[in-house]
């Protein structure tokens, strides 16, 4: 009798342990933010199994001011963080390609400096901007998605080869025209004349690394 009770107890304990083991625990947890509001917009896993996030802050986040992007490695260490948005730009989504490049989608109006790149939108209407960063957080280029009137992007996906896809609401010109424009590397163009749209690299890189508490 005693033997059966012991076997039953062992069986119950082993079943419970198996069930408990099947529910994963948190390996690490990180938190950041400032005195105001901080909200998350999107996340993506990079090619080294780290995590990239974009979020918005009311201005004083512990990693980077305003709309920002950050990359954590697999152990939870903050690798870099950079400011993406300014007063006229807000981050919407992000995606990572197979080589670890980081694509942040922003909606913007007017002229902004995004991740160190000065993006000029002379049309004075809402446009989309895809900023490409390398895996160190350095801005590589930016592509302006612009239409005759309003252009409101709301998602971005990038395949392994770096082709960008994403829906947007738009008025003015048809979407295929915008899609063709979105592939144009504007940074390789001659410097834009006054009153036209264009993107130029800023002299001050805006990437910084800060260890979280």
């Amino acid at each position, binding site marked *: 009798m005693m033997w059966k009770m012991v076997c039953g107890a062992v069986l119950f304990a082993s079943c419970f342990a198996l069930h408990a083991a099947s529910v*994963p*625990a948190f390996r690490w947890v990180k938190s950041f933010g400032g005195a*105001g*509001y901080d909200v998350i917009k999107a996340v993506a896993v990079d090619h080294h199994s780290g*995590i990239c996030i974009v979020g918005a802050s009311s201005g004083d986040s512990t990693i980077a001011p305003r709309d920002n992007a950050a990359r954590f490695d697999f152990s939870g260490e903050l690798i870099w963080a950079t400011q993406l948005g300014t007063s006229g730009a807000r981050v919407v989504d992000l995606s990572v390609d197979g080589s670890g490049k980081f694509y942040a989608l922003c909606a913007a109006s007017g002229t902004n400096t995004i991740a160190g790149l000065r993006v000029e939108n002379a049309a004075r209407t809402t446009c989309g901007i895809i900023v490409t960063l390398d895996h160190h957080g350095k801005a590589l280029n930016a592509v302006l998605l612009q239409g005759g009137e309003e252009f409101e992007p709301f998602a971005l996906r990038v395949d392994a080869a770096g082709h960008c896809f994403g829906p947007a609401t738009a008025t003015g010109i048809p979407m295929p025209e915008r899609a063709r424009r979105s592939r144009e590397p504007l940074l390789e163009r001659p410097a834009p004349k006054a009153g036209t749209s264009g993107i130029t690299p800023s002299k001050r890189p805006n990437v910084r690394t800060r260890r979280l508490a």
Partner: protein
Amino acid sequence: MLGDSEGGAQLDGLGTSGAPGPNAFLAKLDATGHPLWVRHFGVGAKVGVTRLAVDLEGACIVSGYAQGAARIENLVVGSAAKLESYYLAAKYLPDGSVAWARDLAYVKDLKPGDVCTDLGGNAYFTHTLDGAAVSILKLGRGGDVQWEKRYTFSSLPGRRTFLQASSEGFVYLAGDYYSNVDLDGRTLTSRGYSDIFVALLEATTSPWDFVRPNPITKPVATMPVVNPPSIQAPIASNAMIIPTSRGRMYITK
């Protein structure tokens, strides 16, 4: 592509004719943007969609919410007798047929959750529960619940939560929160109105559990596998192939 619609959706001549009222649709486009198929998501119920994830086999996991009985192709989810809103999920195979569809939870205040898949074809969901809690669910390839994990907030749940699975089977959880959030006894306190958290969940899918889309049934040497030029060693017959973002990784037991 996933979207909400009123009464149906049309894409380049392909389309659905849904019931009046809030509906949702799912479409698959080829690389040139041409629609291959369009499916109505949830006939007969007030349906909305939240997120979409595609696994390595090209199957598509859709999460959404509904009220009443929802028919997803030839499967019925929920009940017309229940007036409570619920989260639902469905898996569409690459040809547009439905592998499974199921309700996940009935709750009062629905908030958008997230969905992701791992290399083994398992799916992970987040959704809010009644009160100040969020549930993380892992469903197997067949839609069976593998585990559920919950975490709680001191007041309201945060606005958004996101899930992403790494190639090793770990799952990232990220979101924002007001006041406090309790993650396995680790209480985070917001410095201001709201803060952001990022967490890593231990892997519950071993790399050995990852399923090859095309099991090896022939001698490996005859398979059209492209090896890196510098690696010419033969692949062992018991090797497991793990697709990664950089190609394929081979592991031998």
